[in-house]
């Protein structure tokens, strides 16, 4: 700023320098910003095309409820894909766990909390059973989980004896259809507690980011230009608050949203900041180098499957609670949405690359498109065509960027 008044020359030199820095940073992080921007663009597009229905509180709440299980499984799938594998069985596991929960609660009248615990453990064991063959016997994950897909689809049918089983106890239903309780007395049309939770989440996120940034600057390790950092995080915080306001003006925050958000935070932390997260990336990026660095690569792969199984079980419980019944068809084709979410979110099919936020955004891109197209009255036939093309386009964009 002062330069402009002193002389012209330094300004001319300085501006390209700064621009170059921005351009360089943008180029390196094009994928991340591109993803976010395309989600915004897609939301804006459907907001216009549906005459504002998309962002109505009721629809937004539905959007969250419909996509929660995809987002939750995408967190696990991302780790599996980053480690260099794939899990095709998650859809069947969703169905199987739903059936298991139904049989335990309806036929055996088991307490719903105990049921939930048993189901999560069962999910982890399913993941372990599949991961065992992949990690320790080096059977390609595609084959092992294809087998798992068939096995658990069959077991679902067997458990349910081809029938739908339900309904569930009220407490269990709340997992999916409940909202966080209102603590304040009559607050009019807006649920204050939900709004406050949103504002608090935004504030905490912002504080954490600023604190981290300060630490980076102190050690001279910041990469993102300050302008971008501020812009991104302020917009993000504003989006969270706006979002919670919309939710608060309907029934408040769904319980599922809280679970989902908590898991997102945990998995972002695990992938970015913990040694196990780092090891998953190293194993997927170069297994031989990881092994020669003393990492137990088999065990790392194994754990990603255990984790995936547990998250698939959680998704299965949420899905069953949402329908209030377990059906033999539950979960069919979910694996495709989950895997697509990861790849749209920038994960590499050859492993080693991918971010939690990317997978979440990818899941919402798919979710918003599903929802928007349904409101617009586009048939299920062309919805699938369009989703397929979007997946291809996103991955093409990745590959093209990489080769450039």
């Amino acid at each position: 700023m002062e330069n402009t008044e002193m002389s012209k020359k330094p300004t001319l030199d300085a501006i390209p320098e700064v621009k170059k820095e921005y351009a360089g940073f943008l180029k390196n992080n094009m994928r991340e910003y591109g993803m976010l921007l395309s989600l915004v663009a897609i939301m804006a597009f459907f907001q216009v095309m549906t005459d504002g229905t998309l962002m109505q509180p009721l629809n937004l709440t539905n959007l969250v409820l419909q996509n929660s299980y995809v987002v939750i499984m995408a967190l696990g799938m991302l780790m599996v894909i980053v480690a260099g594998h794939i899990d095709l069985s998650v859809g069947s596991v969703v169905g199987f766990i739903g059936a298991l929960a139904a049989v335990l609660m309806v036929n055996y009248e088991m307490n719903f909390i105990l049921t939930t615990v048993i189901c999560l453990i069962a999910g982890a064991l399913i993941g372990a059973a599949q991961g065992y063959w992949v990690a320790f016997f080096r059977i390609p994950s595609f084959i092992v989980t294809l087998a798992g897909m068939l096995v658990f689809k069959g077991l679902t049918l067997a458990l349910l004896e081809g029938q739908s089983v339900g309904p569930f106890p009220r407490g269990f239903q709340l997992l999916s259809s409940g909202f966080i309780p209102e603590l304040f007395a009559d607050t009019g049309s807006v649920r204050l507690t939900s709004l406050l939770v949103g504002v608090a989440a935004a504030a905490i996120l912002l504080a954490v980011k600023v604190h981290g940034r300060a630490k980076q600057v102190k050690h001279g390790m910041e990469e993102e230009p300050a302008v971008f950092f501020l812009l991104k995080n302020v917009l993000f915080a504003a989006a969270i608050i706006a979002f919670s306001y919309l939710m608060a003006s309907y029934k408040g925050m769904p319980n599922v949203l809280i679970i989902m958000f908590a898991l997102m935070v945990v998995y972002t932390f695990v992938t970015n900041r913990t040694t196990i997260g780092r090891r998953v990336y190293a194993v997927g990026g170069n297994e031989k180098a990881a092994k020669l660095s003393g990492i137990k690569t088999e065990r790392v792969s194994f754990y990603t499957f255990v984790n995936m199984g547990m998250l698939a079980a959680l998704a299965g419980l949420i899905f069953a609670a949402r329908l209030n019944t377990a059906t033999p068809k539950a979960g069919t084709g979910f694996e495709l949405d989950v895997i697509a979410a990861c790849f749209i979110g920038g994960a590499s099919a050859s492993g080693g690359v991918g971010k939690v936020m990317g997978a979440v955004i990818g899941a919402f891109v798919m979710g918003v498109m599903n929802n928007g197209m349904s409101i617009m009255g586009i048939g299920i036939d062309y919805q699938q065509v369009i989703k397929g093309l979007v997946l291809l386009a996103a991955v093409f964009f990745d590959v093209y960027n990489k080769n450039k």
Partner: protein
Amino acid sequence: MSTILEMRGIEKTFPGVKALNNVNLAVRTGEIHAVVGENGAGKSTLMKVLSGVYPHGTYSGDIVYQGQTREFKDIVDSESVGIIIIHQELALVPLLSITENLFLGNEQATGGVIDWELSYARAKELLAKVGLKDPPSTLITNLGVGKQQLIEIAKALSKEVKLLILDEPTASLNESDSDALLELLLELKAQGISSILISHKLNEISKVADSITVLRDGATVDTFDCRKEAISEDRIIQNMVGREMADRYPKREPHIGETIFEVKQWRVHHPIHPERVVIKDIDFHVRKGEIVGIAGLMGAGRTELAKSIFGRAYGAKISGEVHLHGKKVDLSTIQKAINHGIAYVTEDRKGDGLVLDEDIKKNISLANLAAVSDKSVIDEAREFKVADDFRNKMRIRCSSVLQRVVNLSGGNQQKVVLSKWLFSNPEVLILDEPTRGIDVGAKFEIYTLISQLAAEGKCIIMISSEMPELLGMCDRIYVMNEGQFVGQFDAAEASQEKIMRAIVRNVKNGEH
């Protein structure tokens, strides 16, 4: 006698390296012409130029074949005039039959439909020519390496070969298989087929070669006519290695202490073919502050030895003992090896050393994440500081340690791998080809660093195919061949001739 091939003034440059510099090679019709030289002398590059792997325009100089100047675009082009190359790594599809392999890409077919009767009949003819009696429907995977090599030659014969190029054909063969192959070459010669034989085994060369061309540092040193005079192996060896040693290595004064690292009766079997012994009862030791070299040709088993010691990263049925400070230690997993202060810097930094998509910082901390984390949570600031310190100390040229390693030059990538292992705080460093594929300036930096590490009292084991490097750096050199140590020299008495002699004659020199 006429000349079938003449290569004149061939020059070939790779980014930053001049691989061939004015190479001349003349092969007479119907002779066996041996090309010899050290690893990296340019033999394989020259053959790739000749066969069109490096097409016309990517090199300079002329190729005159059968009296005409040729400009090959690709392998198909050179094969069409009868020049056929058989690479060291065989190009056969293991799960297809002999017949299918013989005619791969050249199927006996009309309109895309294979005539199996004709194929089998022709295959039988070809097999008879190379002296094989196996049925043509045998799968390649069921044949031994020696027979596979003969199949490759039969494949060449099916293409009406006039000039056959063999790159180290006997490297993985046992003696009787090697003899059979050499016999076959002589037979082909009698039928008027010329061959170029690239080999390290001088005894084989003196058996069959009519002329010998020696390459060194990408240039022709000399050509001998074996029919005019007997050529002694010593003369060839001198020509292969005879270069002066300039000031390419840092001065160092070794301060050698007591024995720290000792390997006893180390025996390793092949992981896939457990009946094959890859490392045969090796004993060696390294003292404090000592740089010990392991010399040998490619395939001598040096990398296998290093990896098998480093947490059994290679091999099966490993037996033997490793002693550290006089005490027997358990190095059965890589984690245990690292914890005991052993580090192995791989020869294949892209394949085995680096996670290319990750940044410098994450690569450096990978083998010792515990040191930059508290209770499994990584302290990013500490990690960054560690990496940045290494960046300054090792002079890694990069914009920041957040740069991805895939974008670094070979020399800088090597410094990242070294940093990773230095951060694991080792006492014994095994450096496998530490300067492979990096330029001269970066090499000097790596040498300086190795000297410093030795001066700090670390034990260094340096594996290298470049003998001058070993002679310039090491206090002691072991010579390895076919899974055994076949010689040991102190720095003062070692010379390239002595090492080469120990390898090619497989005679034990010095105390052992």
